[in-house]
């Protein structure tokens, strides 16, 4: 693991809510290497965004990191001062957000916004930043860079704005790019373009990418490794091949059963019953047990550790072997019942082999 770019170990994040606490991340560990794409998937509220934002020092409100380490280039990001983090953010770690509509400053020309990061990090001179901006606009697929340089964000469509955000994020040639639901707010056709663009940029600079998404299709399209989070814990971590062929956690299987593909009829879907709830105390048993159709007594009493199940394949489930054994036969049916009207999980939308459709 020596060549990992970012290595997060045993991360804990808590939020204060009135008198009580909400345990958002409970000992999550993950890492990403140069040129690698790590996908973090999970339902809303599973702690996937929070875990990454906390590493970047971007937690809002009452959020607080209460434990763990996040090593990046030999430094623990969680122990850095605000100034030091500001230096790293935008220069060594770029970031893209979900909603390009509201992430750009409406009062600033997009060219100036792209240049800004380079100038504040003293990446190049003003002249150099201008030229690099034109080059970036070209790279992210915005034609007529010189004219577009002077446009304001409201003159751009959502996809174009996301391209601008990407240009801003990669302006200083970061080693790591964090993309927090980068395609969720976009049309499916644009989604694919953006994903292809990210891939191209990654190949150019051997950039590591962390892709946070709730869209399995997106994740399986571009990621080398996928981790599934639930209740702030890593449920399963697997290379793409294993993830596709041998999912070993009932939650993973359930999520995959909830995916809607083109032509899927409602009765073919397998929704996970219930929904993810906020933890008001640290988990002592398997947090998924109450929604899991395979839950045994042991699952309600003992916290399953993240244990290896194959080369690079880790899973946190007491009954993973049984899930594996049943794979391909009836696990889907066991994990979730057929959909009535209400879909419990919020997982939906699928990109299959670049062909996309939205429910």
């Amino acid at each position, binding site marked *: 693991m020596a060549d990992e770019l970012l290595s997060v170990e045993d991360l804990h994040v808590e939020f204060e809510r009135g008198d009580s606490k909400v345990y958002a991340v409970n000992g999550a560990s993950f890492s990403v290497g140069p040129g690698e794409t790590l996908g973090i998937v999970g339902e809303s509220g599973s702690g996937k965004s929070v875990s990454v934002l906390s590493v*970047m020092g*971007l937690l*809002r*409100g009452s959020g607080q990191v209460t434990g763990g380490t996040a090593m990046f280039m030999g430094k623990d990001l969680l122990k850095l001062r605000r*100034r030091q983090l*500001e*230096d*790293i*953010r*935008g*220069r060594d770690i*770029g*970031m893209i*957000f*979900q*909603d390009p509509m*509201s*992430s*750009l*400053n*409406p*009062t*600033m020309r997009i060219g100036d916004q792209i240049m*800004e*990061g380079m100038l*504040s*990090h003293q990446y190049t001179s003003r002249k150099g930043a201008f030229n690099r901006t034109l080059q970036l606009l070209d790279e992210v*697929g*915005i*034609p*007529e860079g010189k*004219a*577009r340089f*002077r*446009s*304001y964000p409201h*003159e751009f*469509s959502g*996809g*174009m704005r996301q391209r601008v*955000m990407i240009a*801003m*994020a990669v302006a200083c040639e970061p080693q790591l790019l964090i993309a927090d639901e980068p395609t969720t707010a976009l049309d499916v056709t*644009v989604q694919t*373009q953006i994903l*292809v*663009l990210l*891939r*191209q940029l990654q190949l150019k600079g051997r950039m590591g990418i962390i892709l946070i998404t709730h869209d399995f299709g997106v994740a399986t399209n571009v990621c080398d490794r996928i981790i599934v989070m639930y209740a702030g814990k890593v449920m399963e971590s697997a290379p793409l091949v294993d993830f596709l062929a041998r999912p070993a956690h009932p939650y993973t299987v359930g999520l995959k059963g909830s995916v809607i593909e083109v032509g899927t009829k409602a009765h073919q879907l397998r929704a996970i019953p219930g929904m993810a709830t906020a933890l008001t105390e640290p988990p002592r048993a398997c947090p998924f047990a109450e929604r899991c159709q395979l839950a045994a007594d042991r699952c309600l009493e003992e916290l399953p550790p993240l244990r290896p199940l194959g080369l690079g394949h880790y899973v946190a489930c007491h009954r993973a072997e049984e899930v594996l054994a049943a794979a391909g036969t009836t696990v889907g049916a066991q994990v979730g019942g057929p959909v009535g009207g209400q879909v419990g999980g919020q997982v939906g939308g699928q990109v299959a082999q670049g062909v996309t459709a939205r429910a």
Partner: protein
Amino acid sequence: MAVVSATVGPGVRVPRRHAQWWLAWRRYKRNKLAVAGAACVAVYLVLGLIGPWVAPQNYAQANFLYANHPPSLRFPFGTDGLGHDMLSQVLWSMRNAIEITFGASLLSFAIGVTLGLWGGLRGGVADMVIMRLVDFMFAIPQFFLSLFLVVAMGRTVWPILLAIGIPGWAQYARLVRGLVLGMRNGEMVEAARAFGASRAHIARRYLLPNVSNSMLVQIAFGIPVDLTVMAGLSVVGLGLRPPLPSFGNMIAQAGANVLGYPWLMYFPAAIFAVILLSFLFVADGLQEALNPRAEDGGRRARRFGFGARGRLF
């Protein structure tokens, strides 16, 4: 690897650069009273700037031969008990009023915006202290504080400017803080932070430009308030020290013998009223044009007996 196709082809018309101001002007134009108000304000500003050069006499020039002269060709606005030409007095008053009210408003604005931005963005103790100060300022009538400051500092142009400007910061601070709180946890600021922007940078390049419209409206509403405060100081005898002319001085003195020499009241009071109303109409028009979604659009004008969009009832 697929080629990334562009969402826009070549030959796209890049919209005109100042489209936002153009749109704002179009909205502003719909309000006829606001346009008339802007014209009056423009005349007022021009007269105030060139007034001292075109005034027939110096403001301090007494001429006892023509004391209490009614309006005539030589003295269009008449003269007062010391034989001051009232037209010249009015022109000089405009100059003083412009200096003091614009200066005071900018001062309030500068203090208020700085504190509001800082408190709103910083949060915590700094924010709490600033907001308690704001509460304190709102609890005490601004006019009262101005009175104290005038007594402490004197009655020439600069002290009065400071006396009006310093107590006025609280409303700017409160407004800016509110707007900043709305943006502080928004995606724009989060993205800026993700790109490594420092707090000062976020305040300067992200927050300030995004509150500037509201600030412009607030200044436009603040100037007529400062005008009334300035006149009010004169009425209680603590305005600009005569012979420095001001509308408040003229109106206060004319009140002493309004039946005998009514022109001393008519001209200054009418002009003062027109200026005040013009500013209010302009402010209302700006409110509608720049913050079309703001909720109290037109409320202030209605308080003065006018309907929304400047229609009379």
